[in-house]
């Protein structure tokens, strides 16, 4: 779960590795697979992937216009079964057959991590791209917590995780497979054991390391027919030590520093734990307009020295219209922690702009870090159509590095919030009254008073004065 962010439902138009895909004409074909990765900590990660393709009469227009690429993010989405039900309905076999029988809400929502996604993209059907298929890919990743679901035991089985076993493939599926990561067993035969023993294994380079998977093909009659159901089990042969899990080469952390409701600082820590290789990362930050960024305070330090980004793109925010956009290309030195920090001032919103729960704070979306991380093992370029679906989650650009996109944690920032309650009104009212009283009191206390004799005489006196003025004599 290293620095991964549980963005609950992420629906995006995926352009896919290398832009447009190219595929043979396939008609309503379904491929489904489940990858189970037992982690050294005893937790188990399970990733479902379903891919459907169908022909479309929609003609492909020009290529994607990159001027109209949009990036939007909802920093918070509460994960619940309402996210899962409509998602399951998109599957051809719903949850009646195939791998999808394992999707039981009460088990999936007792996990410690949940990520669910829908990707839609057009796929060219021929080399010249005259006709197009649409591809719908649904992924669901969960991490089962050994402490909570396994009651401290690290061994697992499909039944214990999902309270279901696999009985039959989905009749519509052209491919239906379960992969179990047995890398540590292939290196050292004593660590773990899978049951039933796999008929085939598959090797691939994932995130720069070589992985071995046991493959169970549900369409292969031998896998299920022996006992009419398939309940894959894994047993650890040696007890695991309570050690800190291994650290990935690139991870990141983000937080708000400072206190008080006037100013603050957004800090992003970028860790490069590679012992000898530096690599560049692209950091993309969108910050809501109500945090007014002071761009001159942007500092990047690595190993105590200032680190100049080789590229900066900054688009200032416009109040109530558009957030700040900050994109930087930063070189991370080997074995270092780089700190990117920028100060901000918290804006005072108009009172109708506050959310119904203003004291909860306001969310700031995660930074997105994209990088080509050097890999330990050389990977060979793969054919996307032939290799398992999950390998497309870990795109490889060339043999020496692999592509990673990380999302840091979203932030919760409190803004100055008026007390929307009776005392607030009372304070407003009293302040008004005090202001009015103060004005008149001040006026009275500082004014000097002169007593003026009341004018007597009236008309006669005025007439007399007129005559006196005509005569050039001072008036009475």
């Amino acid at each position, binding site marked *: 779960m290293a620095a991964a962010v*549980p963005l609950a439902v992420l629906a995006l138009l995926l352009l896919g590795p290398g832009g447009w895909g190219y595929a043979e004409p396939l008609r309503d074909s379904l491929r489904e697979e489940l990858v189970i990765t037992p982690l050294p900590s005893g937790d188990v990660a399970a990733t479902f992937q379903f891919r459907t393709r169908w022909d479309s009469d929609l003609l492909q227009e020009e290529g994607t216009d990159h001027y109209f690429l949009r990036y939007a993010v909802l920093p918070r989405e509460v994960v619940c079964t309402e996210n899962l039900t409509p998602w399951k309905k998109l599957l051809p076999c719903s949850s009646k057959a195939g791998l999808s029988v394992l999707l039981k809400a009460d088990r999936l929502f007792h996990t410690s*991590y949940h990520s669910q996604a829908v990707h839609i993209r057009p796929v060219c059907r021929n080399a010249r791209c005259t006709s197009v298929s649409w591809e719908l890919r649904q992924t669901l990743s969960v991490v089962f917590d050994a402490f909570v679901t396994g009651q401290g035991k690290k061994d697992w089985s499909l039944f214990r995780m999902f309270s279901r076993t696999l009985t039959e493939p989905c009749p519509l599926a052209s491919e239906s497979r379960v992969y179990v990561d047995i890398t540590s067993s292939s290196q050292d035969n004593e660590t773990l054991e899978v049951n039933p023993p796999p008929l085939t294994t598959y090797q691939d380079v994932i995130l720069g390391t070589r992985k071995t998977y046991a493959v169970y093909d549900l369409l292969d009659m031998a896998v299920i027919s022996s006992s009419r159901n398939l309940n894959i089990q894994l047993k650890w042969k040696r007890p695991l030590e309570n050690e800190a899990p291994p650290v990935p080469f690139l991870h990141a*952390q983000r937080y708000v*520093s400072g206190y008080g409701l006037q100013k603050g600082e957004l800090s992003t820590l970028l860790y490069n734990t590679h012992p000898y290789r530096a690599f560049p990362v692209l950091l993309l930050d969108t910050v809501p307009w109500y945090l007014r960024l002071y761009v001159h305070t942007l500092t990047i330090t690595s190993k105590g020295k200032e680190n100049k980004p080789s590229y900066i793109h900054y688009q200032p925010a416009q109040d109530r219209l558009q957030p700040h956009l900050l994109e930087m290309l930063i070189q991370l030195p080997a074995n270092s922690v780089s700190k990117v920090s920028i100060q901000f001032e918290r804006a005072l919103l108009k009172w109708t702009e506050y959310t119904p729960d203003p004291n909860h*704070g306001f969310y700031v979306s995660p930074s997105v870090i994209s990088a080509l991380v050097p890999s330990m093992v050389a990977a060979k370029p793969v054919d996307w159509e032939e290799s398992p679906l999950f390998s497309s989650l870990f795109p490889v650009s060339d043999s020496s590095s692999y592509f990673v996109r990380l999302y840091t944690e979203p*932030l*919760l920032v*409190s803004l100055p919030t008026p007390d929307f309650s009776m005392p607030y009104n009372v304070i407003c009212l009293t302040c008004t009254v005090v202001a009015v009283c103060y004005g008149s009191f001040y006026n009275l206390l500082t004014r000097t008073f002169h007593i003026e004799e009341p004018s007597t005489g009236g008309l006669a006196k005025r007439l007399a004065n007129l005559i006196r003025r005509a005569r050039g004599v001072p008036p009475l």
Partner: protein
Amino acid sequence: MGLLSDPVRRRALARLVLRLNAPLCVLSYVAGIAWFLALAFPPLTQRTYMSENAMGSTMVEEQFAGGDRARGFARDFAAHRRKSGALPVAWLERTMRSVGLEVYTQSFSRKLPFPDETHERYVVAGTNVYGILRAPRAASTESLVLTVPCGSDSTNSQAVGLLLALAAHFRGQIYWAKDIIFLVTEHDLLGTEAWLEAYHDTNVTGMQSSPLQGRAGAIQAALALELSSDMVTSLDVAVEGLNGQLPNLDLLNLFQTFCQKGGLLCTLQGKLQPQDWTSADGPLQGLQTLLLMVLQQASGRPHGPHGLFLRYRVEALTLRGINSFRQYKALEGMFRKLNHLLERLHQSFFLYLLAALARFVSIGLYMPAVGFLLLVLGLKALELWMRLHEAGAGPAEVGAASAPGTPLPPAQGVGLASLVAPLLISQAMGVALYTLPVLGQHVATQHFPVAEAEAVVLTLLAIYAAGLALPHSTHRVVSAQAPDRGWMALKLVALIYLALQLACIALTNFSLGFLLAATMVPAAALTEPCGPRPFYAALLVLTSPAATLLGSLFLWRELQEAPLSLAEGWQLFLGALAQGVLEHHTYGALLFPLLALGIYPCWLLFWNVLFWK
């Protein structure tokens, strides 16, 4: 309004204020004190009530039954602690990891401005250990903190045991919506301060610490735990934080709810809770608790690690108590309720006084007490202002209509010029009092046979006392024509200065403002260079800030039913002075600079008035 715009009636009003000044002042002072004493009685104290909906009715069922496990952890911790002589960091890390937390450590070091003799430390270096329980399927945006401070001895090992047992229990539950940070700090509050500063990536007090590796978003609430032994008696709650800040009343209400639910013996300021509020016994006992709270709040020091969290707008409480199974459940219940929070605690009062756990006085009801006291200063200032004008206008013109408004350029010019010297000198005295003791400690230790801490305290007292000799040197320039005008103008300025300071203090820390007002106001109002000078001098000295501190110490111990002898009181006083200076430097407590730079120079002005020649 007509009263003020009509010069005849205005003059009549002025005469009234002049003639009735003394009775009005006495009345106002008595009213202020009486109002304060009445705060503990029912119409002014109200029952507390839970305002936060998310924590409203008791919806959680506590299941924690790890008392034996906690005791086991505590035994192991104490054994490891004895063996290593310091916080057993490696053991804590291992144990926290084994109960399934994400564990990090933070090392810090701090050289105190001078040796702390109460805690026997000077150069402090330590390590904090904390484990984060990540809430499932959440994005680590919010968190709760359970902290246990460990001092130099192993008194708090029971609390560490409980923290670990609770962590093990909490880890197995799936209902958490906020991350929970389990924090064990070394060198009690210094460790807490180091951790908080590192968590918020600020440096307020010059602490040197390693940056934190793991964070868990915005901290919503925190509980600190101090358990002194394994025998069951009661659970005491401390609310007063740094600079008199208080946590939201709802947090205390939450604690009180669980006290009632579990039938626990809960205390406030070490006092049992009076049941009967209809007769006089309950309110009288409430008054003692209230006075204790006022004294503690006025001291401005954090009464437990929770006090340091309040600066970061993290609502926090310290629970001091003694081991029992049922009390563990109260803790579990409190965390589960806090887990329900949708917003930060904000619904209930932030400014309140407590007469008992379930009785409080809100800000609207206690502010008049200090208002009445400050009115005395206002009335006196008004009287002086009028007398100044009349004196300037000369006896012949007193009755004249133009008296209040007529400008008097020559007389006023002299009055103001003669004020500059005393004002500047007393303010400089304050600056000296603030800076010299710590700066000059090395000089003092070289020339006198004293330790640094003693040197600081003694320099403090010496400068303070030296201030009393000032009047003989300050005013060389006194106008010969109107000898009274000089001291009147000085006293007027001093009164206004004092009133402004006390009003500002009372707004932020009512207790301190009230204590200072109650002691300083009578002397400030009475002081004159004529009349019974020795009496005024004695009164002024008795109500000077240092004497107030000494008196407060005696009153505090008296209320705690542990009266002090004179010698003990003096020792405690010297200790309190050193602690006050230390807390300013280590945690940023504001009492010492406030007294040294604000109140003391102001008091010197009155001393000047008294000895005006």
